[in-house]
């Protein structure tokens, strides 16, 4: 029974996403342009990596191809999250325009409704280019094709996507208390993405520790990439850390859910 209800709830959300795709596709020219510009965006980030390696052949112990693998894992995870929940940073606007109220009077979960009503279909371009970059990197870095590696190549971007989604949701929720929270949100999401795009050895001391372990960004791409490249961590961490990203993603998602619930409760008691 519960399974049937869950399945039909999933079907409702599928319809809502489909409606969103149709909505956004109704502005045809702008839809196509957006899709393309999102491809270009990733190209610009990629160009940065290439420029750096044009000057130095090895960066903090990692070659260009190694770095590309880290970059590919990170950007695919991030672009998936951006596609699914990236628009949640409009939270403050939803409060102001009353969308949040409109969502609260429908018999569905609040967060899920906001996510599907705002899904950034146009960001699909970034996901596609993320897949391409990762595939090229896997090839160039000559990652051995083993079942374990293939599994890791699927699990890591997905866990990364969940992790980044959690960061998006948790930081956007801050808008319930603090209107100008956009900066904090951007610092953590885009900053986090940039941090995970390069091997951690690039970064120094306390900053690395804070972001890698304190906030968990080290698990998004760096440790899994070490396993795929079959090399030990120059910083001395055990290699099994590369398999921990799903656990971390689950913890982050749980924390984000908690923050979200608190935020909605706050809204319902303060009305702002």
């Amino acid at each position, binding site marked *: 029974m519960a399974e049937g209800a869950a399945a039909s709830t999933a079907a409702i959300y599928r319809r809502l996403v489909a409606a969103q795709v*149709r*909505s*956004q596709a109704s502005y045809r020219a702008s839809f196509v342009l957006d899709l393309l510009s999102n491809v270009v965006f990733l190209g610009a980030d990629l160009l940065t990596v290439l420029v750096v390696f044009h000057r130095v052949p090895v960066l903090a112990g990692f070659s260009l191809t190694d770095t590309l693998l880290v970059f590919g894992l990170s950007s695919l995870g991030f672009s998936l999250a951006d596609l699914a929940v990236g628009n949640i940073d409009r939270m403050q606007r939803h409060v102001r325009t009353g*969308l949040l*109220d409109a969502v609260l009077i429908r*018999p569905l979960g609040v967060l899920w409704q906001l996510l599907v009503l705002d899904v950034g279909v146009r960001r699909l371009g970034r996901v596609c280019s993320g897949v391409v970059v990762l595939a090229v990197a896997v090839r160039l870095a000559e990652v051995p094709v083993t079942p374990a590696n293939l599994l890791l190549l699927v699990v890591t971007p997905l866990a990364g996507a969940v992790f980044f989604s959690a960061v998006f949701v948790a930081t956007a929720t801050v808008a319930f208390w603090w209107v100008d929270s956009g900066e904090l949100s951007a610092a953590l999401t885009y900053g986090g993405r940039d941090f995970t795009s390069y091997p951690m050895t690039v970064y120094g001391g306390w900053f690395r520790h804070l972001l890698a372990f304190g906030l968990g960004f080290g698990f998004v791409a760096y440790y899994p990439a070490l396993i795929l490249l079959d090399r030990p961590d120059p910083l001395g961490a055990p290699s099994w850390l590369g398999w921990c990203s799903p656990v971390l993603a689950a913890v982050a998602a749980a924390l984000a859910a908690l923050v979200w619930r608190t935020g909605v409760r706050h809204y*319902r*008691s303060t*009305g702002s």
Partner: protein
Amino acid sequence: MNANGRHGGVNVIEAHGLRKDFTVRVRKSLLRRERRVVAAVDGVDLTVQRGQLLGYLGPNGAGKSTTLKMLTGVLNPSGGRVSVCGLTPVPQRILLARRIGVVFGQRSQLWWDLPLRDSYELLRHIYRVPAAEHAARLRRCRDLLELDPFLDTPVRQLSLGQRMRGELTAALLHGPEVLFLDEPTIGLDVVSKQAVRGFLAELGESGDTTVVLTTHDLADIERLCRRIVVIDHGRVVHDGGIDALHARYGSQRRVTVDFDTLPPALPALPGVHLESTTGPRLTFTLDGSASVGTLVSALSALGGLRDLSVTEPEIEEVIARLYRSDEGRAPS
């Protein structure tokens, strides 16, 4: 008192001592800020019976929308008890959502970029309404609100009046027991206003759906609401019919008479005052207790009465007086 059940219960809405406090921060100096608690809704008691059509009135900022938000489960009350359809709105939000319909005049329930028809199809799935039931209700709304000409138009291209008719339909397709309308006729053209009013009047007459309506439009009230609750500064200052409102705020009927020649002496009747004399035209104002019949027969006995008209008090005047009054509190 038990207000449970779809059919048995009498009171669909029950609120006792309902309040909502907001904390506002007031800047005192550069660094010092003071927190002040403001009661947006300050102890409202309200019971609404099944099938009633209730007008909920008040000036801007009186607490109307805040009350509606507490009744629909959007906001958590700071105090008091509230039950709608036998449910407590906030903790039972999803159960309640299936049994109420809400139209916030400022906020659309429709999908902006899709044809109107698509929104209804999506809502059918969101509310899990059986296809046949949905089709029947949609058919009825299509007829009464004349939706057919724009059913396939993207919502963003609809006029405000068309959109509001669309919103009303959207709120009714799952067969809600209570319909909450926040300013449903605001900004509409005359024709759309009439269409919406006519529809609501019919909905009210059928007696199945309880309607709570906030509005600034006094014609809405006169046309639709037999019961009016006026709220000001977060408190109920009037609860009753239009007549009671008139009586309470001393609104006056006017009798205007034209004579061939002005009579030398006028009858003195209790509660009747001569307001003005312009040529052969006299205007009298009557207090609530005075009878028009008595006045008319007294005047016609004078002879030479040519024309006569009676003007009912304008609700507008009453409400304006109510809003203007210093504290807005009812005289007791």
